[in-house]
């Protein structure tokens, strides 16, 4: 063991340290594309030429020796401690040929610690495509080191690394940059006080906690002749050091590193600057979101209307064609209504996924992650939480699973817990139908009120997620380390195939995953709605006829009949001239048909009220009444705890039971009136209350199951269910009581 050489692999995140490590040691381990996947210590043995052995250590990704995180301080602590058993005889600095400039900063710092260092320039396979050429000899000379040009992907250059490691004794340990020039006076004093110490090492010890406070703090005590500077002064000096290093690196690269500047690279840089700009970046992101929501509204209305009509027609056709009976009713009113309730939202869901896929495919999503990191930090989330939160607009389940690439456990847990607040596609059907009912159709600067409301609901969802994250960040006492690096993939035109695949896959998973549940629940609900145990249910027809002959129709029906009758009369009078008798005949016939229809509707609604489902709904009505709902919405809300999208199907079934008019779901909902006042049930107050309830409540069995799986305990999903739903109830209550 004493004969083996201690080698440390150090480099910026995602330069391929782990890949090189695997190639050298042959130990199999996971090489992921997630930035900074290396957070623990990985060791291995490598056989070198001439029978020498090397002990290889794969260290966490580091941008520089000026620590900003615990992971980086792991590296610095090792390099500053010559007594550590892992202290490297030689450091292999892994760099990525595309980001050589940034990578060399770290290299020069290690070099200045007088630790023998080899430079590995990885990803050589990319050079041709990027038009990069290197003058290796010149680089070796200027950096005063040996270089291996490597591609772990193409498996080239590994032998060269082994050779150089075996030969490490011949490496120069002269520093690259003279750091003392940033403040000669200060360094002079430092040297006098600690004559036996390496100056750059001292400097690193002093500045170690400027940006980051490690757990064990090393300090240099002030003495009579030497007192250290204030943090801000040190920080300024550190910046000066960085500038100095970049000047040195730029000077070298200008000669040794050539890029055939394709238009694309310059274009990319400019685009990055704009898209991640402190002001424009957010404006653009906001504008893109706005456009998406507007498009979802405008474009999908045509296919949706079409689907709506088709299902109404199909239901009619079934009734006309099949022999009459309860099973025919089940098909027409239960099954078709249930399927229709799913299919009608395919256009919108497909459009939403289309846009998400386009953003991801084009590379823009990574810029959003970068941009949002600034915003997310204060809430205890990382920029990487944006991906789950945005995916959460599709479905919370894949979103919760997408948190797996957040390394910090606390941030990950918080992201998992708050993701269900984001507006998932299952809420979309509920939102859309209620918005269509209660929000007026006007436009505001070309944007419809309805689209704006939808957008607002998405924002509310995000806000709820953010603020609960902030609270959780304070409340949860979990210690864990931070690590955040974003990779910026190149911009590319989205591959149509990938986009199409995502859209189809996600839509399918909505239709089959949620659809089956919705359909099954629709069938059960239809049954509960068209059967009852009470006498009143069995006697419904007689009871209602008796009531009508005694008290007349309900106010709503009376007005409805009068209105329809009047418009029919006007129609007749403006049409071709009729004799008095003809006119009267037509009017009488019309009146009879209108009254017959109203009677049937009242029977249907009476039956429903006394069915099983009516009984259940009535039982929970006291609970939902303060929110502005009647027992019918109460049932829909209750069944939504299985899955939110059941809501519309439930209402469709509830309303169309025993109603053979080919009315669409929406019109039927709009026609609902309150029992006590005959005012429309869906007004602004109850609509907003319902929207808010769905925005906040945890109504998805499947998400709870996934959260259980990801957190490995029932504690978190149950807390989620209880807290979110209680909160939803309170907010909906407040909203209704204020607005009504």
């Amino acid at each position, binding site marked *: 063991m004493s004969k083996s050489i201690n080698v440390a692999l150090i480099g910026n995140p995602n330069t391929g340290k782990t890949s090189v490590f695997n190639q050298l040691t042959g130990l199999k381990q996971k090489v992921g594309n997630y930035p900074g996947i290396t957070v623990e210590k990985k060791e291995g043995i490598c056989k070198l030429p001439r029978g020498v052995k090397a002990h290889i250590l794969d260290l966490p990704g580091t941008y520089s020796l000026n620590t900003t995180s615990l992971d980086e301080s792991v590296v610095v602590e090792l390099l500053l401690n010559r007594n550590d058993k892992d202290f490297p005889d030689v450091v292999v600095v892994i760099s990525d040929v595309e980001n050589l400039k940034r990578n060399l900063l770290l290299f020069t710092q290690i070099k200045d610690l007088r630790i023998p260092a080899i430079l590995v320039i990885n990803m050589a396979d990319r050079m041709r495509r990027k038009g990069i050429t290197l003058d290796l000899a010149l680089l070796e000379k200027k950096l005063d080191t040996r270089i291996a040009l490597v591609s772990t992907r193409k498996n080239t250059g590994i032998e060269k690394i082994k050779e150089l490691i075996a030969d490490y004794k011949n490496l120069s340990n002269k520093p690259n940059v003279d750091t003392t020039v940033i403040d000669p006076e200060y360094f002079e004093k430092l040297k006098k006080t600690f004559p036996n110490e390496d100056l750059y090492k001292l400097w690193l010890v002093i500045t170690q906690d400027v940006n980051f406070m490690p757990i064990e703090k090393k300090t240099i005590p002030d003495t009579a002749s030497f007192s250290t500077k204030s943090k801000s002064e040190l920080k300024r000096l550190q910046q000066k050091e960085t500038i100095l290093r970049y000047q040195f690196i730029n000077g070298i690269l200008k000669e040794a590193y050539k890029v055939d500047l394709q238009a694309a690279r310059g274009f990319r840089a400019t685009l990055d600057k704009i898209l991640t700009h402190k002001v424009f970046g957010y404006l653009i992101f906001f504008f893109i979101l706005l456009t998406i929501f507007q498009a979802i509204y405008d474009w999908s209305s045509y296919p949706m209307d079409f689907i709506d009509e088709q299902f109404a027609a199909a239901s009619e056709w079934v009734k006309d064609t099949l*022999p009459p*009976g*309860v*099973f*025919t009713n*089940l098909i027409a009113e239960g*099954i078709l209504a249930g399927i229709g309730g799913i299919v009608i939202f395919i256009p919108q869901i497909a459009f939403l996924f289309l846009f998400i896929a386009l953003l991801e495919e084009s590379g823009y999503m990574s810029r959003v992650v970068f941009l949002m990191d600034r915003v997310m930090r204060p809430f205890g989330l990382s920029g990487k939480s944006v991906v789950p939160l945005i995916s959460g607009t*599709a*479905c919370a*389940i*894949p979103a919760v*699973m997408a948190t797996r690439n957040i390394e910090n456990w606390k941030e990950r847990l918080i992201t998992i817990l708050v993701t269900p607040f984001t507006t998932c596609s299952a809420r979309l059907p509920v939102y859309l139908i209620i918005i269509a009912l209660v929000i007026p159709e006007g436009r505001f600067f070309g944007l419809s009120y309805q689209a704006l409301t939808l957008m607002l609901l998405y924002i509310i969802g995000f806000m709820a997620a953010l603020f609960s994250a902030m609270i959780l960040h304070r409340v949860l006492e979990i210690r864990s380390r931070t690590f955040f690096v974003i990779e910026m993939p190149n911009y590319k035109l989205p591959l149509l195939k990938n986009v199409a695949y995502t859209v189809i*896959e*996600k839509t*399918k*998973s*909505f239709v*089959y*995953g*949620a*659809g*089956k*549940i919705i*359909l*099954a*629940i629709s*069938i*059960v609900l239809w*049954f509960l709605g068209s059967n009852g145990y009470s006498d009143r249910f069995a006697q419904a027809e007689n009871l209602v006829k008796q009531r009508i002959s005694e008290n007349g129709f309900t106010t709503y029906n009376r007005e409805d009949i009068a209105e329809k009758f009047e418009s029919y009369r006007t129609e007749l009078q403006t049409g071709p001239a009729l004799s008095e008798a003809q006119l009267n005949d037509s009017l009488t016939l019309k009146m009879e048909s209108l009254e017959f229809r109203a009677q049937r509707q009242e029977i249907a609604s009476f039956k429903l009220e006394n069915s099983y489902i009516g009984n259940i709904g009535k039982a929970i009505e006291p609970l939902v009444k303060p929110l502005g709902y009647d027992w019918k919405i109460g049932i829909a809300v209750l069944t939504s705890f*299985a*899955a939110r999208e059941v809501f519309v199907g439930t209402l469709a079934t509830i309303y169309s039971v025993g109603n053979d008019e080919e009315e669409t779901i929406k019109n039927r909902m709009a026609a609902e009136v309150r029992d006590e006042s005959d005012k429309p049930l869906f007004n602004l107050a109850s609509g907003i209350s319902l929207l808010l309830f769905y925005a906040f409540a945890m109504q998805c*069995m*499947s998400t709870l*199951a*996934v959260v259980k799986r990801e957190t490995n305990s029932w504690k978190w999903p149950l807390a989620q269910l209880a807290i979110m739903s209680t909160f939803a109830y309170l907010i909906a209550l407040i909203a209704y009581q204020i607005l009504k």
Partner: protein
Amino acid sequence: MNLQSVLVYLTLLVALVYLVNKFLLPKKYRIGRKGTSSGCGQDDCGCS
């Protein structure tokens, strides 16, 4: 009981069995595809 009623009860039974199987039974008692979350689309959406 006529044929239509029989069919209605059958359909109802299928729906109930599906729901109970999906949500109420512990995983090991489930009928059909065990363990894996197949039939749920690629990303498990809508599955437990």
